[in-house]
């Protein structure tokens, strides 16, 4: 244990995802030794992101205004929605340049063991978006792992009766991983080879 403020910093850093006690300590001492201007820039970036970045009222993606850049773009196809777990998946898919529709960010996947059920995700918001009949196709791009698959199954069953074409990213993605780690080629191919879900 260190004294007062140093330990406070280590504790705060240790609460970040993927940062264990050892890493927290390393980062804290790096910051202690760093140039004050660098630290001030980091602090500024942290404050700015909390002040300026919000979540899109339509799709749940990170946004700098009421709606995100993609939802505001009139060139994007309003008839197709691609459902993803997190905003970082939007970034990954955008890099492929395969997709010209819009997104819906769920905020995670159904994970009963973590206590996360359908009501804890932005599924009700998705249903609202589908209600007016403008959307004709739903692409389910949840992570290609167990929870992502189960979430896709749940959504497909929910949306099929609405007369939508429901597809799921498929070929090219090995199961068990996170979508964000797929390289552009793999992810691009998965888009081409998306399949119809028969639930």
């Amino acid at each position, binding site marked *: 244990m260190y004294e007062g403020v140093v330990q406070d910093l280590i504790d705060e850093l240790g609460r970040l*995802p*993927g940062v*264990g006690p050892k890493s927290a300590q390393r980062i804290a001492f790096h910051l202690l030794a760093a140039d004050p201007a660098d630290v001030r820039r980091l602090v500024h970036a942290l404050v700015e992101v909390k002040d300026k970045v919000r979540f899109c009222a339509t799709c749940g993606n990170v946004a700098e205004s009421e709606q995100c850049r993609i939802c505001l773009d009139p060139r994007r196809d309003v008839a197709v929605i691609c459902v993803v777990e997190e905003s970082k998946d939007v970034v990954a898919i955008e890099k492929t340049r395969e997709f010209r529709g819009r997104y819906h960010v769920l905020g995670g996947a*159904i994970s*009963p*063991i*973590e*206590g996360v*059920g359908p009501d804890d995700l932005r599924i009700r918001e998705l249903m609202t978006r589908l209600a007016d009949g403008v959307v004709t196709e739903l692409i389910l791009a949840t992570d*290609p*792992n*167990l929870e992502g*698959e*189960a979430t896709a*199954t*749940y959504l497909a*069953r929910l949306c099929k009766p609405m007369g939508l074409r429901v597809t799921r990213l498929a070929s090219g*993605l*090995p*199961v*068990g*991983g*996170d*979508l964000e*780690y*797929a*390289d552009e080629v*793999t992810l691009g191919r998965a888009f081409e080879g998306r399949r119809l879900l028969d*639930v």
Partner: protein
Amino acid sequence: MSLLRDEGVVLRAQKLGEADRIITLLTRDHGIVRAVARGVRKTKSKFGARVEPFAHVDVQFFTRGSEFPGRGLPIITQAETLGAYGGRLALDYAAYTSGTAILETAERLTDHERGQPALQQYLLLIGALRTLAMGAHEPGLVLDAFLLRSLAVAGYAPSFVDCARCGLDGPNRFFSVQGGGTVCGDCRPAGSVVPSPETLSLLGALLTGDWGRADASEPRHRREGSGLVAAYLQWHLERGIRSLRLVERS
């Protein structure tokens, strides 16, 4: 440092750092084991779905320091599939949610003796997942049968016929979670309920594996039965089973 080999079922896979996961397995010979699977979240990982929940695997660990977890968790060096139930279950939401509750309960009922084998619980788990993946019975029934039997293995077998207190021959009308199941009129504690006789018969069938009788049961008796099983389970565990609330019942 040593290499250990065992077979096990993956109960849980939690994110660790950038691309790793901590895998919790119920193994055949070493009971609950927590180990690190490195790089599994990368889509090019050699492990892929083999260390996802529901996977039945032949697994090799590289242990650091003392036998099982302490400071450094063992590292999974190899995993070969013996039974892949996850893929099938993920395509059936009711089966998936029932399966998750099975995994969570299996962990809870075996976790107190880390490193000790829990062979009966292990075999029960494999059997339940196999049955669930085959889709031969309603998922909720498979779940309730597993819960009752794993409670029985843990030493909490409920009674569904004779009085759990004095042994009076059944059928007995009253049911008490604290009393250990069905109880007679003289023994019944305050708060005992009177379930329908068909529900008690269903629960008895699930405990003994009489699937003919269980499959023929009516939805309302299944509903009442699962409520009693859940209450009985909660009573015997310190904390509730989180995923039970999210099980989709037909």
